[in-house]
């Protein structure tokens, strides 16, 4: 099977976000970049599928030279090769999806995994964009997944208030949710092997961003509370404030 996993190079969750001088991008200085945590579930799902059915897992990433570090992490986890779509320009989700589809459509892909969202721009869009562009079914936010011999997919998705079970068939795009599996840690052997695995570089075709960013701002600083009480004796005052001041009860 030709298994593809879309991965993103993103700031880790504890990074302090500083808006760059231009006011339209995040300043990368001082940020530690990681493999998007949700994509790890996708990689693990891809690796398990390969172990069950044979084939090859390719990790794809769109971005500048520096994203190769993240591709190497995917290779260290067990992906067989990397596909780096090289661009220095910030692309919106539509542009990233378009570049990925161009890159893989002639490589007889059988399945495409991605994380439910990338923790930088929180787009949640890749699974649907890729699915529709490829004219494949797409299943998002999957917390349980199984594949039958004939390619039938049974999945469980998280929805408000519970779960939804869905049925579909490969080829499909699947976005992965926390809890789907336990992503394996790259062992030293894997990290060493990753250095020798191939990362193919390709250039995407021209794309004009559809999203026009006007600016990035820090959210308004919430003022610290107007009333901080000191124990059960202050509960009455809290309730009074919730009623009279906040007017929510």
């Amino acid at each position, binding site marked *: 099977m030709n298994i593809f996993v879309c991965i993103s190079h993103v700031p880790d969750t504890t990074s302090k976000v500083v808006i760059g001088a231009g006011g339209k991008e995040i300043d990368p200085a001082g940020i530690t970049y990681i493999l998007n945590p949700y994509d790890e579930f996708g990689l693990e799902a891809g690796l398990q599928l390969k172990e069950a059915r044979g084939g090859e897992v390719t990790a794809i990433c769109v971005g500048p030279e520096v994203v190769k570090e993240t591709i190497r992490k995917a290779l260290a986890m067990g992906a067989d090769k990397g596909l780096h779509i090289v661009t220095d320009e910030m692309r919106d989700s539509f542009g990233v999806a378009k570049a990925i589809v161009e890159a893989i459509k002639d490589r007889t892909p059988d399945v495409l995994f991605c994380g439910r969202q990338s923790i930088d721009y929180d787009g949640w869009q890749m699974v*649907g*964009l890729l699915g*529709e562009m490829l004219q494949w079914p797409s299943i*998002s936010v999957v917390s349980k997944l199984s594949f039958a011999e004939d390619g039938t997919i049974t999945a469980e998705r998280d929805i*408000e208030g519970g779960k939804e079970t*869905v049925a*579909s068939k490969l080829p499909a795009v699947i976005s992965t949710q926390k809890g789907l599996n336990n992503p394996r840690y790259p062992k030293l052997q894997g990290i060493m092997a990753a250095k020798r695995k191939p990362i193919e570089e390709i250039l995407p075709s021209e794309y004009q961003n559809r999203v026009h960013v006007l600016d990035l701002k820090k959210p308004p600083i919430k003022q610290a509370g107007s009333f901080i009480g000191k124990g059960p004796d202050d509960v009455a005052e809290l309730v009074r404030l919730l009623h009279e001041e906040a007017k929510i009860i």
Partner: protein
Amino acid sequence: MNILVFIEQRDGTIKKSSFEAVKVASEIASETGGSVTAVVAGSHVRNIQNLGGYGASKVLHVADALVDQYSSTAYSKLVHDAVMKSQAHVVFLSATSAGKDLAPRLAVKCDGAVAMDVTSLHVDGGALIATRPIFAGKALETLTLQTDVQIFTLRPNVFSAGTPTESMCPVEALSIEFSESDFSVKTTGTSISSEKIDVAEASMIVSGGRGLQGPEHWYLVEDLASVLGAATGASRAVVDAGWRPHPEQVGQTGKTVSPTLYIACGISGAVQHLAGMSSSKVIVAVNKDKDAPIFQIADYGIVGDAFEVLPVLTDTLKQFLGK
């Protein structure tokens, strides 16, 4: 600027977040000119004409049992048809599980673009300007979509649905020729926990963290939630520890919520938790540690032991609310 609003229903009842989306659409359309059309799918949807009370001038109804259950491929087809029919250049959906799933497929069909999880929207010089949180809410991105069809998913419970008027609007049947291939993803079942309100849809949440010291003390959180008619939420630490189920988790790797009231009990306020709840309208914190970061964003708080404070809070509210 004609706007199409996707209406979500569950078991025949229209979701509150859909009313919010119609209301926003009608406010925008009254500024820019243009009509507000709603589209709803399902054979047993009730009170569709009431959408008029929120500002819809017409509803397109795909009253086909085949689409009683959500399917990303079938729904993106029917909403696309509705876009064409209503000549809409703007589409609103709620940023719910279905909305987030549907919007990007629709964007490709319409050759448009999506802004996901929008928390503020206004018109400037004829263009729609949207603001959305990024980096788990550590920054806000303001943007426009430079496409003929612009799709926005609106964060639930941020925009007000207001009070509906008595207006009813006409409901027009929209018939779609579905083929088997339109159902390449099929919902085969749903299991909804009917006793509990989901945190993502609740207008009030009482949330617990490690300060509760164990799952056996969760009745303190549940009793308070019950008096308020609130949902119960949890921090990542207690979900990872197995005290509470993952669907209750609020935070960067859980759910993002914007309730009217969020009461954080025994939660210190790690950045990743705040990412999930900082847009709550009113935040109350109860924590033994006066230096807990949660107090920096709480509107009101009590520095005290949750075991002492919560029962008193529950009783006081019970009396206050006459329960």
